[in-house]
């Protein structure tokens, strides 16, 4: 545990000299993240072990879901509805894989504090680790799924191009964005237990409002603005650019998403930091 004196005070009290000498760290959040790095990795590996119990089979089950969805959407959109995107499976997966990770991150992060109520009530540790471990463990998951995507891209003769140098940037931006939202949801869930139900509805609506199973060109012109205003469209279309179209992502989309992700993560972390003071008694 950090050795600085605990600062616990309220606004009505005058500031008095502290007992002890170590200064108060300015960036409590960052400081904790470093000191408790190992706790984070412990929690992530605990989560991964539970999820991938029986290793090979575990990975198989976790990949089965996107593969099945791919099959279903492929049948629906290239056999029944006949969307003119070829090869449709790669187009679909290039957006579906990051979307699934995004949705999974939010879902796990939302209940990350309430699921760990036992330790939140009894042990002092930086509580931001809880949603962060959700983000980190789905991040590992994302790497596995992206590997699968690369294999399929080659198998379908789309190949992988130089445009993939943008992939790490997109992954980082997505992680920032989901960290911010995940923190807000996790804190909300402590105070309102139906946030998780609200979220599952939101995710479904958001999924169909984002060009994943269809492309933006198929959206009627007068509805476009709504779709264009959705930050996830910017991210997903960038993924489609680099995987499917094998071209550079739109600079406008990239920059806009960077700004939004940075804002969301700042707001999310600071709101979480403030709200987390009440977790031990409210959870």
């Amino acid at each position, binding site marked *: *545990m950090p050795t600085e004196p605990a600062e616990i005070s309220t606004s*009505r009290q005058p500031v008095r000299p502290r007992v002890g000498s170590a200064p108060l760290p300015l960036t409590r959040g960052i400081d904790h993240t470093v000191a408790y790095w190992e706790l984070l990795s412990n929690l992530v590996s605990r989560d991964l072990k539970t999820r991938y119990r029986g290793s090979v089979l575990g990975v198989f089950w976790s990949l089965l879901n996107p593969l099945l969805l791919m099959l279903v959407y492929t049948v629906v959109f290239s056999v029944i509805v006949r969307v003119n995107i070829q090869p449709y499976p790669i187009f679909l997966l290039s957006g579906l894989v990051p979307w699934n990770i995004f949705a999974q991150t939010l879902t796990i992060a939302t209940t990350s504090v309430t699921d760990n109520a036992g330790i939140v009530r009894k042990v002092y540790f930086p509580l931001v680790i809880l949603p962060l471990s959700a983000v980190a463990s789905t991040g590992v998951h994302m790497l596995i799924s992206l590997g699968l995507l690369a294999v399929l891209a080659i198998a379908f003769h789309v190949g992988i191009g130089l445009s993939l140098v943008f992939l790490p940037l997109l992954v980082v931006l997505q992680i920032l964005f989901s960290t911010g939202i995940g923190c807000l949801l996790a804190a909300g869930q402590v105070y*309102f237990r*139906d946030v998780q139900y*609200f979220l599952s509805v939101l995710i479904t609506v958001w999924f169909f409002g984002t060009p994943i199973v269809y492309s933006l060109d198929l959206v009627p012109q007068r509805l476009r603005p709504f779709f264009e205003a959705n930050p996830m469209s910017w991210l997903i279309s960038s993924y489609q650019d680099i995987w499917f179209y094998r071209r550079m992502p739109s600079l406008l989309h990239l920059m806009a998403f960077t700004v939004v992700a940075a804002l969301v993560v700042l707001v999310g972390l600071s709101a979480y930091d403030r709200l987390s003071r009440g977790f031990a008694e409210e959870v």
Partner: protein
Amino acid sequence: MVAAVAFDGVSKRFRVYRQRHHSLKEAFIRRRRGVYDEFWVLRGISFQVESGTTLGVIGPNGSGKSTMLKLIARILHPNAGRITVGGRVSALLELGTGFHPDYTGRENIYLNGALLGLRRDVIRARLDEIIDFAAIRPFIDNAVKTYSSGMTMRLGFAIAVNVDPEILLIDEVLAVGDAEFAQKCYARISQFRAEGKTIILVSHDLDAIRKFSDRAILIDQGDIRADGSPDEVTNRYLNDVRRRQEHPEELADLKTTARWGTHEAEITRIEMLGTDGRPRYAFDTGDPLEVVVSYRCRRPVNDPVFGISISRADGVYCYAANTRANGIRIPRVADAGTVTCSLPQLNLLEGSYFLSAAITDYERGTTFDHWDRRVEFTVRQKQYYAGGVVYMDDHWQVDGTTPVHSPR
């Protein structure tokens, strides 16, 4: 003197939800997050623990001892006041918290150690010591769910005392496991004391308090009732307990609050505030104060009367006042609000008192809500004025001779 832990006027309040909506949907519909009572578990307590000493903390169940330790450990945060902690804290609040049942003992040592802020290499270096201390080597690679509860506690204790704290908080987990392990725990605590660590020990085992602490405090109803040598304080506590048993009518009966009424309008909170606007529970004779009654009602209520009353701990009815008697008529209240009664000076003499509040109907006198003996407070005389219940501002005159003024 270097204080390892210092409390300065620390108050902690909990909300007890009577009807918790606890859902976004309800919150949108009703625009609030549930009906709750606020109650102060700690009421402005101050104390210091000198570095390298052991403080014993005793008090009845629910008096706020564990809450105090959680505040020191920064698990909870105070609503007022200031807490200063100089040193690395390890809290033995509940052993084995954070163990994963499917993990082996060894894996759990790493997981729990990380939770307590230990680095992996530090844990690895202490692994043998922890396993030997817990004396569970044959089982260390079995899943923790197969352990007996005593074994789980031993492992938890062994990890927590190996965090190498500067300040150790112990809540009722002094002697866990069988007799042999309990001896080991005691020996370990003695060793910590010899090493000059600061320990705060909460226990109902008064012998352990006498044996291990350098000083003790007694907490009751959120206040420090006694602070001194362990012998003095534990005796005081035993006396209190005895008195309560011998005169149950004096305390048990009268202390319990009672409540009745139709609840068309409800009292949500009764507070006594000092001149600084902060809640107070101890006054001197002559102090000004305000009583604030918060209420809420589901539907608007016509013509309510708000009243308060004070009775002494032994049951003597001392004072009652209400808005109607004060010539105030309130046509209608809706939703929620507060009613404040100011008393420019509290003319009660020394003693323990209870404050009650009620909302009744102006015409019919129906009781909407009567909350009896909701707040306990004490009054002291700074200097001796008089005996009895009330101070009457007496003046004396002696005929035939000129009295000499003599300060007491």
